[in-house]
């Protein structure tokens, strides 16, 4: 089991604001790793830094044993990291299928058909709606589309930022089921969640982030049982 991603002591600033204060963690092949923490803890910032949209002042990020901390954002996707940003960023005016096609922008031509088939297999709801304008999809469907689009580039590592945000409980269950399925099919997943309970139930390992630092780490089970986590994030 090799290491896919290693984050070493990164420090990220927004101007004078020191948002990430020396975070280190790693993700192994085939795992679901989750980052949990309160609002504003720095979870999204961490994902943005990995995908190259933000830069770390110090430290290093290695993906498949290669440093990517100075790689341009648009090249990181073709290296095999796909980022589904917070808040369902889809192309509202395009159809479902066009959105998925855009996700394959950096993908080799001969893989596109295969990937599209795979995405429709994982998300049958999208398949029923191939030519629907994406902006008219329901919230849950939009989240599925954003995830499906990210899968179109054949990622080695899929980073999901709060996929359950604003969804009804039944949809949350569905999304998490899909996440587990994707993982079983071989995709390594780095999951950021507010819904700590759900996240910990599917995660192999978890890290708790508090105001820019990692305060706790362990397996999903360990953290779900830990008193600190229960008090702070699981409601007692």
């Amino acid at each position, binding site marked *: 089991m090799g290491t896919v991603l290693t984050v070493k002591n990164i420090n990220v600033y927004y101007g004078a604001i020191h948002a990430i204060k020396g975070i280190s963690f790693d993700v192994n092949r085939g795992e679901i790793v989750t980052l949990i923490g309160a609002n504003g803890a720095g979870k999204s910032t961490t994902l943005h830094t990995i995908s190259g949209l933000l830069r770390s002042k110090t430290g290093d990020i290695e993906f498949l044993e290669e440093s990517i901390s100075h790689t341009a954002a648009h090249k990181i996707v073709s290296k095999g990291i796909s*980022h589904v940003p917070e808040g369902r960023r889809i192309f509202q005016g395009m159809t479902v299928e066009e959105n998925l096609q855009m996700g394959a*922008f950096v993908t080799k031509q001969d893989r596109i*058909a295969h*990937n599209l088939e795979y995405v429709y297999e994982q998300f049958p709801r999208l398949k029923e709606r191939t030519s629907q304008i994406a902006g008219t999809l329901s919230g849950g469907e939009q989240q599925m589309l954003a995830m499906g689009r990210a899968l179109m580039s054949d990622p080695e590592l899929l980073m999901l930022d709060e996929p359950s945000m604003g969804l009804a409980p039944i949809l949350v269950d569905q999304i998490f089921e899909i996440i587990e399925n994707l993982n079983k099919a071989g995709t390594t997943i780095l999951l950021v969640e507010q819904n700590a309970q759900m996240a910990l139930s599917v995660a192999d390992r978890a890290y708790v982030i508090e105001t820019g630092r990692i305060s706790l780490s362990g397996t999903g089970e360990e953290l779900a049982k830990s008193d600190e986590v229960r008090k702070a994030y699981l409601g007692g």
Partner: protein
Amino acid sequence: MADRILNLKSIGSRGLKNAVKGNEYRREASISYGILIIGYILLSLGAATGLIGHNLQGQFVPICVYVSLAVSLNLVVGISGELSLGHAGFMAVGAFSGIVMERMLLAHMSFEPAVMILSMLFGACMAAIAGFIIGIPILGLRGDYLAIVTLAFGEIIRNFMNVLYFGLDENGHLKFAFNHTIEGIENSQRIITGAIGATGTKTISTFNWGLLLCIFTVFVVLNMKNSKQGRAIMAIRDNRIAAESIGLDVRKYKLMAFVVSAALAGMAGCLFGLNYSTLVPLKFNFNTSVLILVFVVLGGVGNIWGCIIAATVLTILPEAFRQFADYRMLTYAIVLILVMICTYNPTIKARVTAIWNRINPFKKKGGDKPKKKKTGKEAA
């Protein structure tokens, strides 16, 4: 089942490139080219039968120029979604470099079509270079800031033209000076004289060249819009963060739209420059940039054939209103305001559409669904 998979595969393997050139592209292309050809025939007929007066005939080339400018600006404003207020600057670069090229070429050859084409290409190249140099630092900016900076650059270009001096010596060699007149060159051999501008240009622009330029511009813009690159540019406009997350190089595609747009504006500028024996840099001021933007906004941001019509009508109108003499500009402004209200105020627009549907003899069954239009604000 096997059928379904096969079908899926065919969609996938056709890939982005062909999938995007669907019906919508064909529809937009046929309407745009149709309007250009019909407009050309109507205006030519009008001129041949004497229905269109001499003054208005003089506007034929400018109409083509403004149509190309509007279509090319639509690439930035409509398709890339950035507000640019410096389009006249690129037009100026194309005009003056085209004029210099023309005079140099005419000193050595007399085959006008070749002179025309080479001058236009040169104008396009120079404008593209200007677009590239300006584009690199400013495309990190967004919205209003980009608008202000393009405005400033447009003015800088025009003022730069004010201090350029070009001329031909007795052997037909090009002479250049910056900020002072060139000694020892007779008046007739001067090409560009600072703020006085270009003089002695041989006017080789014709309506036919204008039509060709319009067709070429529409061809480039429509194909770009419907290419893989065009998809990327529109995806960035629709949702920059999503576009970044799927691995699009945002700056590259924004720059691409900006440079192509500048090059096309340079070509149009060249046609414009070769239409007048004298041309002052002042012609390419902020007002001209705004005028082109007005064509785009009135024609519909992102709508190619709409801005062809808007540019044509709004170039003809001031000429047609000549009879109102003193009230000419007032009438023009009122027409502008009315068109804006009728197109962008939803209530009034619905009423106008309803009336139009009642009197429209070519009414389709079921009726078209209302066209979605973006306002300039959204695009910025």
